[in-house]
């Protein structure tokens, strides 16, 4: 090696430097390509880039009486006509936007601009919008009346921002204040029937180094609800939900129904569950239930009245568990059937449950089973 080696190093280094520092301005390319079919019919499923998972999410709703629905065009998902007969029509536009700003404020300010109002900050958000819970999602309902500006008359906006899992859904109707005013309540009632549905979400495989630990490809179960991973199985019984009781999604197969009652600050829960076979002795159950609301167990059932009640031709049992000074009260109906015993149970704040006694009994009496179901 020695000096020869040295002398050959220098030019090599120089070339290297030149390669590294040289850069070329990107040039316009031209080429011929096979014919591309124009974007006519969309193929089954819209292929989004693999790094994104959107666009097979959809919404459904219950169309109120008197409203008409038109399929959407372009970026609009659907158009609902609130007054199908009248002219000009009163349109409710439903538009999804992938990757739209999740912050409702940006959209609200954009709408304000359209009706001639200035933008607002986060502190004033509560003045124009309120959040309601619809099927577990926080939906912002917006009601704003603008001012006359730039040759535009005064207009009022009713809007709802519904966050899906992959897109944000916008429901918007904008027109004269009086016309809109008639539909404010109907709009909210309509929004409460809207549900988001979507297919399985795909995930991108990590292109980085395989981790030593098998980190999951994403949460297998959605941590977003207290629900179990699977939908309830066969549902052999039917009931009528009393007014004021709100149904929520059943959480797991042994729980067939789930409703909540709210009255001001008081709340109560109603559940229907079933267990295979006969259950343990009544005393043990009663003591368990007493324990659930913080009461001491009893030695025998003398103090616990048990009423007979007939439900769908079966003799069932009704108990009310309460005590002076206890914060909560329980109402329970046990319905023994062939393979299962059904529990209809209301748990909640003392005053509310007491008030709901008759409603509960009526509800239980109205339960009926599918024929052939156990």
């Amino acid at each position, binding site marked *: 090696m020695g000096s020869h080696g040295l002398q050959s190093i220098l030019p090599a280094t120089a070339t290297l430097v030149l390669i590294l520092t040289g850069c070329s301005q990107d040039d316009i390319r031209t080429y011929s390509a096979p014919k591309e079919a124009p974007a006519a019919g969309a193929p089954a499923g819209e292929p989004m880039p693999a790094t994104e998972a959107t666009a097979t999410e959809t919404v459904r709703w219950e169309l109120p009486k008197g409203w008409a629905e038109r399929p959407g065009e372009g970026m609009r998902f659907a158009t609902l006509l609130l007054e199908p007969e009248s002219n000009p029509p009163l349109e409710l536009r439903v538009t999804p936007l992938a990757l739209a700003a999740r912050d409702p404020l940006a959209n609200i300010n954009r709408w304000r601009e359209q009706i001639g109002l200035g933008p607002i900050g986060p502190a004033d958000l509560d003045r124009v919008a309120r959040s309601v819970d619809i099927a577990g999602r*926080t939906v912002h309902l917006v009601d704003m009346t603008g001012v006359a500006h730039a040759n535009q008359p005064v207009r009022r906006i009713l809007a709802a921002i519904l966050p899906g899992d992959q897109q944000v859904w916008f429901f918007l109707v904008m027109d004269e204040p009086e016309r809109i005013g008639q539909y404010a309540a109907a709009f909210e009632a309509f929004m409460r029937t809207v549900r988001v549905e979507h297919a399985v979400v795909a995930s991108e495989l*990590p292109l*980085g180094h395989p981790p030593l*630990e098998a980190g999951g490809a994403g949460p297998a179960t959605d941590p977003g609800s207290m629900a179990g991973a699977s939908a309830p199985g066969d549902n052999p019984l039917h009931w009528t939900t009393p007014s004021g009781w709100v149904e929520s999604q059943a959480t797991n197969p042994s729980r067939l129904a789930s409703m*909540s009652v709210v009255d001001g600050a008081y709340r109560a829960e109603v559940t229907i569950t079933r267990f295979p076979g006969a259950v343990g002795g009544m005393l043990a159950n009663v003591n368990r239930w007493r324990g659930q609301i913080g009461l001491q167990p009893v030695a025998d059932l003398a103090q616990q009245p048990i009423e007979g009640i007939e439900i769908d031709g079966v003799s069932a049992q009704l108990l009310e568990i309460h005590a002076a000074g206890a914060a909560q009260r329980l109402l329970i109906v046990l319905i023994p059937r062939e393979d299962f015993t059904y529990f209809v149970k209301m748990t909640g704040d003392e005053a509310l449950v007491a008030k709901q006694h008759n409603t509960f009994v009526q509800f239980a009496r109205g339960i009926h089973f599918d024929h052939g179901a156990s």
Partner: protein
Amino acid sequence: MNTPSRSARLLRTLPWLALALALLYAGAALLPARDGRFALSQFARLPIVDLGRPKPLDTFARSTLLIVSNKQSFYLAETDGTAERSEAKGHAERSALEWLLDVMARPEVARGYRIVRIDHPDIKAVLGADPERKYFSLDEIVLRRAEIEAQIQRANEVPAGDRNSYQRAILELAQHLSVYFHAESVAELLLVPPTAAGTEWTTITAERHQVDEHGGDSPATDAYLQVMQGWRDDDPAVFASAVAQYQQWLGTAQPRLMRKIDMEVRFNHAAIFLRAIGLYVIVFLLAALSWLRMTPALVKSALWVLCVALVLHTLGLVARTVIQGRPPVTNLYSSAIFVGWGAAVLGLVLERFYRNGIGAVTAAGTGFLTLLVAHNLSLDGDTMTMMQAVLDTNFWLATHVVVITLGYASTFLAGFLGILYILRGVFTRGLGAQEQTSLTRMIYGIVCFATLFSFVGTILGGIWADQSWGRFWGWDPKENGALLIVLWNALVLHARWGGMIRQRGLAVMAVAGNIVTSWSWFGTNMLGVGLHAYGFIDSAIFWMFTFVGTQLGLIGLGLLPLHRWRSMQATSQVRAPRSVKQPTAPPLAPPAPESPR
């Protein structure tokens, strides 16, 4: 030579005594479980598919309770049927399997058990509970369900990196509850094994439908109905007969699986790694004691008990490999087990060569610490998880992952030796010239080993990446971490060869290697979790920082001027404060207090 005194004779029996006790302790792991009234050990062996893997109900019960409650057992009150998670008066300890039976067969009862762990005070406030309490019953939580579900929804809307501690805590609770409800839904668990070729595991509900439509038998459904009945009615006979009958059927339908399940149940029961921790502690004490009172007996005892510990450790590793059907390292937990094993083996090898207790101490120390880390990692639930598609290749798991984990193990071992060097040198008179030389040689040798293995392991990782997605080096955090270890070890070696560091310097740099390795092994997993919001409170991050802090402290100690080291003062090696660059003359001081062998 005078006749050995009584005490000398006693000391000679010490190694045998220690060996016998260690063997007894380890052997106890192999004892089968004993049943109470109910045939629980048989029920434990019933199979279920969970998280993609067929496993015994025992594992399912343990991991579910572990996730919900952070412990594999609970305490049941004898009188009123309530239960607590931690020890309480009038409560007897019960196994996770019994908890699972209550959850499945008597969910209303189980929901009253106060075993769901909640730490965040704001969540406790939502439940209206005393902030001192740590464990809650599902009933209490369900009572506030609407509010909690709203909170979960709100937390879910925040992108993962920006969540504050409350949001992360509530989402963690949601996940735990989801696991709980999953266990409750007996009819939807994958309990029914495939009956014919081409069929898959299925649920009781599905089996019922199948039988309704097509007739035939439903052995699983019948068995479980009976089992639940027996448990609810407190009837051990019904319980036992149902389990026995079903087991018999399983024995003919799925013989291979049942053998593996049997092994797994025994493995669960043996708690091998916990016992190994205990033995490592004993070894550590024995070896450390041998430095205070140098008797060959103590060193020998340490060595023998170390062998037993290592055999137990190996047994555990092998069992896991057989049960999973995969090479030993598949996730973070198993990497911790393997690092401990590798370091212990290397320590044992050192001990065989040097026989001065140092190898034993390092083997025991690293074994103990890594198994402790592993234990904490196991609290996430089932440690035998399925490998994701791209990782699903036994060849690369057996080569790249194993080699690089050995690289971690050896770097940690070198670091531990460095710590020994510093502590002995600064605080005791035990670091004489001979000790210095031998320790230095040990560290140097292990660093060479570490360089080789981490380099080869990193390269193998690159080749795997190239085979998988065409990119040999992606510069991603895990890869970078591995590269850092190679670079650091190379740096240490080059610094030594260039005369820039001598013995003390080598020890200090070896300790710094601990920091680099812990970064590569754990730190890269925590990136992005803590820095966006308020995540420093996360316990894993906390422990990592604590560990790094201790290592920095030790480095600081090591960098103290040599004349402040007790060992150096004792042997008057250093005349005045001088830089270490000038090597001192060979010492004429008395040799270090161990007898050469």
